């Protein structure tokens, strides 16, 4: 693995001086060897992602345009699965519910993540590192755990209800704490917040103290500084956090399954069912791509509007 040839000019000079056999020079000059070395380094990772991610996504997309007959997928081109996804009432309701939940969860996550990163950056400067580290630990501690533990926390015989009964505040368990849309949003936010913090934090690091001071100096109050300088400068990070959270929420399967209940169901559950129980890959694929397309459209609109508003 050669990592030495960092500057093209220097390489050319040195490569020439080092002198290869005449045959070698004819086949590959210094530049060619450098390109080959770089290619060999970046090649495996690129090929791997291309073969095991892009190719599967392409196959997955093709499936959405094909048909199932007798539990076999046959290459008959059609748009039936998409038509169904977009016109069938139950699918439309499902999609709409997914967007509501993903929208709520991503707004909550990005909002709290921004508030957290902003507090670290401007109010608790000295504690930035340890507090950020705490969030990173949360990010790597148990995706499934963060979902199913809420059943122990909020369930009918869970900690919160036991405590409320023990204190004599309630006599019956509060069953609205779990298995509904609100619960799905809160639980999604619980594991999306750590993901959302890092990009926002990074964006706020790019807002330099001098820029804040300059805005103050030129007549801005705290709010003016926030809206005219801090928010626009941090906007790319805020947007990225929110979009990441939105996509992750829209494609989640575990939360609606474990704590969503009847009105907290989402596309992910149905997609999984079409793959695991119906074996109707085309329908599942069409649902997945419809969700992806709708999500990306929403994300695009937010990006456009956000960029216009925060300037």
């Amino acid at each position, binding site marked *: 693995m050669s*990592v030495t040839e960092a500057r093209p000019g220097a390489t050319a000079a040195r490569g020439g001086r080092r002198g290869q056999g005449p045959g070698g020079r004819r086949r590959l000059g210094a530049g060619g060897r450098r390109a080959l070395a770089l290619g060999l380094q970046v090649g495996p990772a690129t090929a791997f992602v291309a073969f095991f991610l892009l190719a599967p996504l392409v196959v997955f997309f093709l499936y959405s345009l094909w048909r199932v007959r007798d539990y076999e997928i046959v290459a008959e081109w059609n748009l039936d699965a998409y038509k169904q996804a977009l016109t069938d009432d139950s699918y439309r309701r499902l999609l709409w519910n997914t967007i509501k939940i993903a929208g709520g969860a991503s707004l909550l996550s990005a909002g709290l993540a921004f508030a*957290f990163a902003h507090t670290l950056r401007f109010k608790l400067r000295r504690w930035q590192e340890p507090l950020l580290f705490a969030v990173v630990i949360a990010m790597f501690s148990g995706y499934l755990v963060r979902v199913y533990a809420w059943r122990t926390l909020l369930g009918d015989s869970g900690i919160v209800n036991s405590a409320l009964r023990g204190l004599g505040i309630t006599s019956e368990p509060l069953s609205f704490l779990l298995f509904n849309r609100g619960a799905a949003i809160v639980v999604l936010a619980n594991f999306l917040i750590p993901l959302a913090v890092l990009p926002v934090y990074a964006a706020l690091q790019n807002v330099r103290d001098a820029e804040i001071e300059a805005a103050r100096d030129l007549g801005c109050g705290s709010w003016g500084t926030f809206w005219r300088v801090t928010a626009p400068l941090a906007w790319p990070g805020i947007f990225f956090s929110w979009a990441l959270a939105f996509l992750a929420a829209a494609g989640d399967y575990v939360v609606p399954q474990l704590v969503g209940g009847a009105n907290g169901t989402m596309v992910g559950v149905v997609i999984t069912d079409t793959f695991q129980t119906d074996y109707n890959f085309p329908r599942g694929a069409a649902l*997945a791509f419809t969700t992806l397309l709708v999500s990306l459209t929403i994300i695009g609109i937010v990006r456009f509007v956000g960029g216009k508003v925060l300037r």
Partner: protein
Amino acid sequence: MRRPPILAWLFVGALLTFLFAPVVCVVLFSFNDSAAAGPPIKGLTLSWYREIFTNVEYTDALRNSLQVALISASCSVVAGTAAALALVRLPRRITAVLAGFFVVPMVVPALFIGVALLSFFTRIGFELSLQAVIVGHIIVTLPLVIALIGARLQNLDLSMLEAARDLGASGPQAFARVLLPLIAPAIVSAALLSIATSADEFIISLFVNGGDQTVPVVIFGGLRTGVTPAINALASTILAATVLATLIAGRLVSLRDVAR
């Protein structure tokens, strides 16, 4: 300015409590001497841990998870480090394209990666197995490795490699004696975080495991019959491993470098 920012601390405290409440809850009830995985706490016991290390279903899952984590992390670290080293030296335009390319696995929801891999593997006749799970985990950990090591390389002055060459080192010597020691902490932390990610990964594993279940898949299966203390103990074991890995990784790299 002088008074302590009480509101700020209240907010940060509340948020961290929210984030860690489920984790604490699971760990706590894994020690509960009761068949029900919920309040009240009847006493402390290690019997649930004894169970997960003796019951074949759980030990198999632990072995599978360990195997998957180690293999996928090794592959990701080798391929990812090589790619990161090339990315800092390729022409800017190519780097921009490739950087975008390697973000794809981070952005596409895991569910879609899982079902896409399932479609793909069945199409090309690749048997669903631990190997398939490993492939899925390499996909999600590669971007992490490239990001971590890339961040470290970005903060280095690579002309020191030329200096090393100028002072008589060969290419491999310059790499081994100058660059490698400097990026070694980043490599180790990338490996640890890859292991943590892999051990925790659920959705892709769910779709492509083909019967060779990893720990999260077993936990999820157990949840159908309700949360049990043994499930909590199993989850806590994985939690302990991932948190430990994250703690060590965090000591090795500056968060500020990464958050950029």
